[in-house]
């Protein structure tokens, strides 16, 4: 039963299974385990990025397409909610309509990009999506009447999701039961559901064909798979996931702007998370997102401690200054490529496989 829930895609490593369970429980009970505004924000961001990155993994890890336009769809999802709530007011209807419109726009754009992807070489495609994404970001900041320009949009949500809505006067286990908590669990359910459905997709006959296309597109076509169709479908699906993730982001932040959902920086974060977690594994998205977002959110705090400890050493302390946190993030980029060529998931699985080999030899 459980096996079918995860589409028979077992973690294939006991340690990996344990890590995944810890992450799942941690996120499920985050409001109770880690009280506080910041901790909950980090947890929510993990949920959002799990969906965003897992969708990207479908494209990159399974289909082998490098696209920099993923955040464009993330932005479309976020703007869908933001613009509709802003123009039509904080109602469920507005959210629903905005979400539907953004899905439709995503569908059209990703279809166009997907079809285009076959016309040009892979590397050209990557660079073109980079330029398109940049243009889209510019466009979003130019259409300021509509999108709020550089300033972005702050908007309200239906009462139910606002922090000011208290469902009970008594806090439960020290946590007040308010709209924000409800919003968190809405995201949680969405994220888990999206992840399971993606597992289903990559483990379907369709998912297998995607892998074949990644390995050798020419041969996949030769044995009878219409590559164009599969690629397009994959890029559309992946874009839709990004769009949903964007909507989740907007719901959580009640704000959206070009920097928040469209920036190239986010694209890089997504890439890094896929690589840290392990490409073509889906589970990697969860692990990578947790690792990366924890690092990103708490690196500055960590550095503050480190630089206080090293005040005596002038150069070191200026390198360890929390203001230079990006330096260490950059180092994380470099080191993760060095030490996790197959990502955390790949590493754990290889370890488990070696062990199995060793025991089978003994036995």
């Amino acid at each position: 039963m459980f096996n079918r829930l995860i589409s028979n895609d077992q973690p294939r490593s006991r340690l990996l299974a344990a890590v995944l369970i810890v992450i799942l429980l941690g996120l499920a009970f985050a409001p109770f385990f880690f009280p506080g505004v910041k901790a909950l924000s980090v947890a929510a961001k993990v949920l959002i990025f799990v969906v965003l990155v897992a969708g990207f993994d479908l494209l990159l890890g399974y289909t082998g397409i490098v696209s920099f336009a993923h955040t464009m769809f993330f932005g479309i999802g976020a703007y869908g909610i933001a613009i509709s709530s802003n123009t039509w007011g904080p109602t469920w209807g507005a959210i629903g309509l905005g979400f539907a419109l953004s899905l439709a726009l995503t569908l059209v754009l990703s279809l166009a990009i997907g079809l285009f992807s076959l016309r040009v070489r892979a590397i050209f495609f990557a660079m073109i999506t980079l330029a398109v994404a940049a243009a889209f970001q510019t466009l979003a900041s130019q259409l300021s009447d509509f999108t709020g320009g550089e300033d972005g949009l702050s908007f309200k949500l239906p009462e139910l999701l606002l922090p000011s809505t208290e469902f009970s006067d008594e806090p439960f286990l020290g946590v007040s039961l308010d709209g924000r908590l409800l919003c968190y669990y809405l995201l949680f359910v969405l994220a888990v559901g999206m992840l399971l459905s993606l597992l289903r997709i990559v483990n379907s006959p369709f998912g297998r064909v995607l892998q074949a296309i990644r390995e050798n597109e020419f041969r996949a076509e030769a044995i009878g798979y219409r590559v164009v169709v599969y690629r397009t479908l994959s890029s559309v699906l992946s874009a839709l996931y990004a769009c949903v993730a964007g909507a989740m982001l907007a719901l959580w932040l009640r704000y959206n702007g070009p920097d928040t959902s469209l920036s190239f920086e986010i694209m890089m974060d997504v890439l890094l998370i896929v690589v840290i977690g392990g490409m073509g594994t889906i589970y990697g998205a969860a692990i990578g997102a947790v690792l990366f977002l924890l690092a990103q959110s708490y690196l500055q705090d960590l550095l503050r401690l480190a630089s206080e400890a090293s005040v005596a050493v002038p150069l070191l302390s200026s390198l360890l200054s929390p203001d230079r946190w990006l330096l260490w993030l950059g180092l994380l980029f470099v080191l993760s490529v060095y030490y996790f060529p197959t990502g955390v998931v790949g590493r754990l699985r290889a370890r488990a496989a070696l062990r199995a080999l060793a025991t089978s030899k003994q036995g």
Partner: protein
Amino acid sequence: MKFFEDIDTRPLLLVPVLALLAWPLIGSGSTWLTLTVAGLAMGMIIFIMASGLTLVFGLMDVLNFGHGLFIALGAFVATSVLGAMGDWTGSGEWWRNMVAVLPAMVVAMAVAAAVGLAFERFIVRPVYGQHLKQILITMGGMIIGEELIKVIWGPQQIALPLPEAMRGAVLVGDAAIEKYRLLAVAVGLAVFAAQMWVLGRTKIGLLIRAGVQDREMVESLGYRIRRLFVGVFVVGSALAGLGGVMWGLYQQNVVPQMGAQVNVLIFIVIIIGGLGSTGGALIGALLVGLMANYTGFLAPKLALFSNIALMAGILLWRPQGVYPVANR
């Protein structure tokens, strides 16, 4: 010469055709001349910045997102060198100004080359042939480098005043042609000629392209491809450093983020050029420079998207850029 016989001349016409098409739209001849010369010169500066990237990306197939770092580095080194030579830059005489700018260029190139050497060793070497990892690791390198620039020079913008004699414009009738842009054209042409000579008249270009396809085979033929790759990367970085000096002097101030700011632009240029063709990159850069000026004059709102539109148009005509180099 055989060399010229093989050349596909149609892309060469793009630049004059674009310029001529713009004339009637702009109307005034002097305005057109101002815009055209300025655009061509801007193209040259962009070409200098992008030329290193065509080498590294086009020949070695390394997607170096850290290229902008070397541009920024070159510019920052120039602020230090020129800052130390205030007497020379402040003087109004041409030769004294050149004497100040030349060492700035040389030192900037040397520093960029040295950092490029380290960058190749620690950042690029483990990921030859793996685009995705190249993107990530060079982005990481770029971030680290940018932060180190902030540690050394501080996070604020630094002025890089243009030497006296290079300021102002030469007047041709009613058209103003900035002196500095003329210098940029000269430097750009020199870089172009040197690159064409090395790649066209020696085996180096061939070896690198072969090495990208099958490194083991090139080694089996007895060539130390590693050294060559290091060399190309270092040269590419040095050219970026030179580009940084030119760009910094043009802007007259430098900020640590400047490398990241020009990254997309130079990628567009080399895509238009066909990834790895020096001539293509030059054409791409000139087109970008002209297009920006013409649309900036005719429809400033659209200027933002002029590069993208240009790239899309070129790729519809030739899906692999104006001078496709390789089937990658």
